[in-house]
């Protein structure tokens, strides 16, 4: 029972350098050079060290885990700063800044060592790189060090990342795992003032149940059970309306729904379902419009769930649902799903809409009956971003 826990740490040293000097993102050599010229300093390592310190304080006993760290700025330095002896994975780069392939390589090596958890410090880009190596097989957790982060695979803060990692490694049953969306941001467009985000995939992250012993009332359902409940009841409603063209958006809860409907496809894009079967996968705007035209004037319903950590219902990861598509369906035909945990994570903030058409966003504002369980709904507000 007491073999030592294995933990991995990968730092993306250039993550977050843009933000403080007014740049959005640091992919691409030119941007990095510009950032350095403007005096940008690597921050990710510092944040990784914060996380490690929080982990050490929390861990019982503190020196039990074996830490594997990327070489040099990719984790070795942060481990040393935190006073956590580490086994170094890979070699230090002799020239040029580190890039996505270094992140992927480090992750793969650590997975070979059988780490239970990989902590990575960075932003959306780093999450994407981790995903390329780890997929959904390896449990990971992001230490936020990027600019504004859209992926849901990150802890709230470096300290929280450390605490959650410690809990996870101790094997406490209070910590479960769940899937979190990884958003792929088009950084160049972002720099041009346009935010284009697609859902890239899902990472498996630890997730703490907010419960202590000593219950007055019974215990609640797990995240998985909540999602399954929603999926089952919505699937039944969908089957009951075969004449309707259902456009099912991306996200972890709608993914559950697609599985309940029998789909085992890519699960990252917009899928169409009609007359008891899937009619199209991972559709783009043109494909959707064609299908609606073919389907005729009958009803179109769009099934959505907030994607990523910021509460976006529209505009992040489902831009294929263009303003034209949404207008054809109509506001009353938007069906919103979310587990209660997802709504609570918004900490009172609204769901957000950023379709690219501010007039449409304004029209869509209001309260929606979000499906949060079997025959259970929450009235939740959607606001234009």
């Amino acid at each position: 029972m007491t073999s030592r826990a294995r933990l991995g740490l990968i730092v993306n040293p250039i993550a977050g350098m843009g933000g403080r000097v007014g740049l959005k993102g640091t992919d691409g050599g030119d941007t990095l050079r510009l950032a350095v010229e403007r005096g940008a300093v690597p921050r990710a390592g510092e944040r990784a060290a914060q996380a490690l310190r929080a982990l050490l304080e929390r861990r019982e006993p503190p020196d039990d885990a074996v830490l594997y760290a990327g070489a040099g700025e990719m984790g070795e330095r942060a481990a040393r700063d935190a006073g956590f002896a580490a086994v170094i994975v890979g070699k230090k780069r002799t020239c040029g800044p580190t890039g996505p392939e270094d992140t992927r390589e480090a992750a793969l090596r650590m997975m070979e060592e059988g780490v239970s958890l990989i902590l990575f410090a960075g932003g959306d880009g780093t999450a994407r790189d981790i995903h390329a190596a780890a997929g959904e097989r390896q449990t990971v957790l992001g230490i936020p060090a990027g600019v504004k982060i859209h992926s849901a695979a990150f802890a709230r803060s470096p300290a929280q990342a450390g605490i959650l990692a410690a809990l996870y490694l101790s094997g406490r049953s209070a910590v479960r795992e769940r899937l979190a969306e990884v958003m792929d941001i088009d950084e160049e467009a972002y720099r041009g003032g346009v935010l284009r985000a697609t859902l890239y995939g899902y990472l498996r992250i630890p997730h703490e149940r907010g419960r202590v012993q000593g219950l007055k009332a019974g215990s609640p359902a797990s995240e998985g059970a909540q999602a399954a409940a929603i999926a089952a009841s919505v699937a039944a409603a969908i089957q009951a309306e075969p004449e309707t063209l259902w456009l099912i958006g991306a996200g972890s809860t709608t993914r559950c729904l697609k599985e309940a409907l029998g789909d085992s496809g890519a699960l990252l894009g917009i899928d169409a379902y009609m007359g008891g079967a899937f009619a199209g996968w991972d559709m783009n705007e043109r494909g959707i419009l064609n299908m609606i035209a073919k389907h005729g004037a009958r009803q179109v319903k769009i099934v959505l769930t907030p994607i990523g950590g910021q509460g976006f219902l529209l505009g992040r990861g489902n831009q294929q649902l263009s303003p034209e598509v949404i207008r054809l369906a109509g506001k009353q035909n938007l069906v919103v799903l979310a587990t209660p945990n997802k709504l609570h994570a918004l900490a009172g903030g609204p769901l957000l809409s950023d379709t690219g058409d501010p007039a449409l966003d304004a029209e869509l504002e209001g309260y929606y009956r979000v499906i949060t369980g079997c025959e259970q709904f929450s009235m939740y507000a959607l606001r234009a971003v």
Partner: protein
Amino acid sequence: MSKLNSHPYIPNFGAEIQAEMLREIGATSVDEFFECIPDELRFKGKLDLPEPILSEAALKRHIEKIAAKNTSANEAISFLGGGCWNHYVPASCDEINSRSEFLTAYAGDPYEDHGRFQALFEYESMMAELLEMDVCNVPTYDGTQAAGTALRMAARITGRNRVLVPALMNPDRMKAIKTYLSPDISVDTIEAANDLTLDTARLKNKLTSDTAALFIENPAFLGVIETRGGEMARAARENGSLFVVCCDPSSLGALTPPSGYGADIACGEIQPLGIHMHYGGGRGGFIATRDEEQYVQEFPSRLFGIAPTTHGEWGFGDVAWERTSFAKRENAKEFVGTAAALWGITAGVYLATMGPSGMAELGTGLMRRARHLANKLAALPGVRIPTTAPFFKEFPVCFRDTGKSVEAINKALLVRGIFGGHDLSPDYPNVQNTALYAVSETHTQADMDALVRALAEILKA
């Protein structure tokens, strides 16, 4: 009435202490805290309550006078039963459940309220020995709630939406179960045989593919012991239904528990285990099953389990198995709230005090007294015991051939200081002039003779 400047239940009553606290808050008057309540919502008059009885001595006197209008079952000779019984309450039970550490505690963690967790784990464990099942819950409100929940559990486990219950079951419990199970689960009934036990011959016809559970009481409400439980269990199993048995824990020292004849879920009322009757207000319900995941995860009530500590002590906590099946509304796990924990602790004290011998002697003694009394009553002219089935501690007595109504008989008995068995006629339209007579281990031969003598007189008149 002079205005109080202090009250024993409100330490911060006085103007001075309130002013001091207001100063520290930075407010000038307590009224400020209520400014959020708009005028239209304010209650403006005087509450329609009597003038208070302020002194403790006067309060005691007042309420004792009210109490004096009652005649308790121990001031008469009582043969009342039917779901609530006048068993002896050992002094240890009252001693422990009036300990303020138990009486005034509530919902602390397994550390500061370790005592309560251990006491309730032990209650679960002692019930488990009586029932010979490995899982028993922290008590729910009463045996009726336990039965209702057991039936809903069966519905969830089997995915079916009907239950089959005896037509002659406890009529109040039947009503409550129907209320609890509606609107989604329907209740079918199965008739009794001539001897008032379940008519097992009809079972095959009555069990349908929608029947989630066959439910019986054993002993039955009318006191008879069901001896064909094995047959019932088989029929239920062959039909894919669960077999749910509501039993009397006071019988389980002498009678085979439900698990011994194939029950899947056992339930019942713990009032006989050291809890005063309190006019029907002292109640608690148990539900017990095998230690299988599919059962344990259906319990809405709390289940306390045993766990290790860092220092090798006995620790406890909630077995709060995260519900994994909420996919259908039918799987929603009912509800749980403040129910009857103190009575569970009491029942634990009772069972430990009685021990195996006590429970065995209790069961045997009750059956002997019941048979003795039934024989004596049956010897009275016109009085009939309308069953040949064995009974436990109560039995029906038919007075139809005496020409006198149970109501009249009971009024006459009352005058003589005897509470006769309660009249079954209002709840059983087909059963006229029949009363349910119950015995307790406190009944002496003289008590029973007094009843027989009184009845002899009354019936002659």
